[in-house]
């Protein structure tokens, strides 16, 4: 079972789905559009509250003109060890100033979630059983001392300009 998790806990009745051949958005649901479709839709309408799902090879800068119309950006991890999504998230938050929901979807595992949080993700579509259990127990495996500034703001750490400290294990 796939559930949506945010730092405030699991989210019920999340409306966003990735459409497939077998699955289309129902009445209470909204589709996450792929990048090309999103751009066409945005160009042809004045719709707001849109959602997009990025593939690892997508150039996030193409979203720049439409960011204010997006309610959610989902970044996909077809495999947990494909790390491109970390840079995509960092660019969305730090370069493009995107402030709405940023969701990791795909192969989202517990040991990567702390890294994802630091890159600016704030929402996670989780299927892995261990990850779901640890999240339910609120046991994230992250560490609070960091040697680099990232998209997620954190307090300055002791000593040098590049150090940061998070209040808890993220």
């Amino acid at each position, binding site marked *: 079972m796939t559930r949506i998790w945010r730092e405030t806990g699991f989210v019920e009745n999340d409306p966003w789905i990735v459409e497939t051949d077998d699955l289309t958005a129902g009445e209470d649901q909204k589709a996450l559009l792929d990048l090309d479709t999103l751009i066409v839709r945005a160009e042809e309408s004045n719709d707001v509250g849109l959602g997009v799902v990025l593939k*690892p090879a997508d150039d996030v800068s193409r979203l720049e003109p439409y960011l204010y119309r997006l309610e959610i950006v989902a970044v996909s991890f077809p495999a947990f060890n494909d790390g491109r999504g970390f840079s995509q998230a960092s660019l969305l938050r730090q370069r493009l100033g995107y402030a709405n929901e940023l969701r990791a979807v795909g192969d989202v595992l517990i040991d990567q979630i702390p890294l994802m949080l630091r890159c600016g993700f704030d929402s996670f579509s989780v299927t892995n059983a261990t990850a779901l259990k640890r999240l339910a127990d609120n046991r994230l495996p992250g560490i609070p001392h960091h040697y680099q500034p990232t998209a997620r703001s954190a307090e300055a750490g002791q000593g040098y300009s590049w150090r940061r400290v998070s209040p808890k294990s993220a």
Partner: protein
Amino acid sequence: MYRYDEFDHAFVAERVAQFRDQVERRLSGELAEDAFKPLRLMNGVYLQLHAYMLRIAIPYGTLNSKQMRMLAHVARTYDRGYGHFTTRQNLQFNWPKLSDMPAVLHDLSTVEMHAIQTSGNCIRNVTADHFAGAAADEVADPRPYAEILRQWSSVHPEFSLLPRKFKIAVTGAERDRAAIQVHDIGLHLKKNDKGEIGFAVYVGGGQGRTPMIAKLIRDFLPEEDLLSYTTAVMRVYNLHGRRDNKYKARIKILVHETGAEELARQVEVEFAQLKDSELKLPDADVQAITRYFALPDMPERPEGWESLARWKKADEDFARWVQQNVQPHKNPDYGMVTISLKPIGGIPGDATDAQMEIVADIAEEFAFDEIRVSHEQNLILPHVALADLESVFRRLQGTGLETANAGLITDIIACPGLDYCALANARSIPLAQEISSRFGSAERQAEIGELKIKISGCINACGHHHVGHIGLLGVEKKGAELYQITLGGSGDEHTSIGEIVGRGFDPDKVTDAIETIVNTYLGLRLDPSEIFLAAYRRVGPQPFKDALYGSAAEAA
């Protein structure tokens, strides 16, 4: 050297606890091996042929006697009484149990050591010139910058799942002893016209199955931009490096396929956005880190000049050791001592717990408590008074650590090879031992002069055969081991990739082939000052092909 502050201690303790949890989940079966693999690799744990291997980080190869003693303790307590110093200035233990790993890491953390990012597809332990801070030809000490990079890259969330591993090396001297042109990023410290410190930035060097020499993409990067520019390189690589084929995933392939100019342009575009970000290095921070690496307070010891000459006259072995293993220090009363881990017929880079203790004792007593690991798999005492050389030599005698062969034909680099490694096609260590024994006589080595032999047991080139003056690559052909010989490689400021000389040799023929090559060189060199590499560059491969394979027509 750098000392941990509270922040560093807290970080490493948290990292040990984090890894302990991961190991427990693996042992309980909650974590599958494929998901555990990148996690253990991020912490230096490999699954090898016979057992797990733990690779411990020795940042830029610098350690003190307390840390060396801890390595001896780990060797004794959790392993089989020895460790293996690597070409990346690290130390590997080949036999620890997975269940012991958290305890090992805890013990290491008490002396400010860890295994973070010694493997995995992340930014690896940053390496530097093993003579840093002591060499006379240095513009500036590379270690403060290596330390800043080490900190910044530790558990970097954006760059923990790169297409492939990523190695950074820093040199502060014209004479490149860190092989920066065969690294993913090579930084060469220099000063501009105004006397300001900066870096020439090389990208896309590497060995492995596709050896490439790095391209210069920035002639002078100001010191303050070190982290922002490096971030720009990493981001371009993370987004665009190939992930479809692990053998084409290193940044060298991206540089090759994109073109160095275009890649440099992409990096500059990204850098322009990052330049004035919070990554800019404040001068005060650079100064504070640099202070950790200040030279020790070294008293004048002019008496060494006279006594050294006297001792050398009295003892031929000592004279030979000084000649070969001691290099001039920036302070003329001192020398930089290489402790060879290449005893004749021994295993390159291995040291027993007792040997580690001896080196620790000597470092504490005679060398301001400083030890280095060189990428040539030897240990270095960077600051030893000439007046103490005799005492140091006496302490080394009879321990297996007194071999006078630094830079000579028996100072061989070899990967662990088929004796340990799951990737290897052929053995490396027994071949190194055989060559070492064949050329072991002190007189013969001296006659041959500087000659770097490097042996890899497979195409991944951990033994750096591509940059050996003579390189040996073990391959598998029809189920048997075969060694391919390359000539003319070099990993210094004039980096070159060795050329394959012809068809490979059977294991029992390869040492003879080396001998043929050496004799050919001795016959054609202009005079003894023309080392093998220089002679090869002058005459090319043909005389060696003729000698190895008969007439040119027969050569493969």
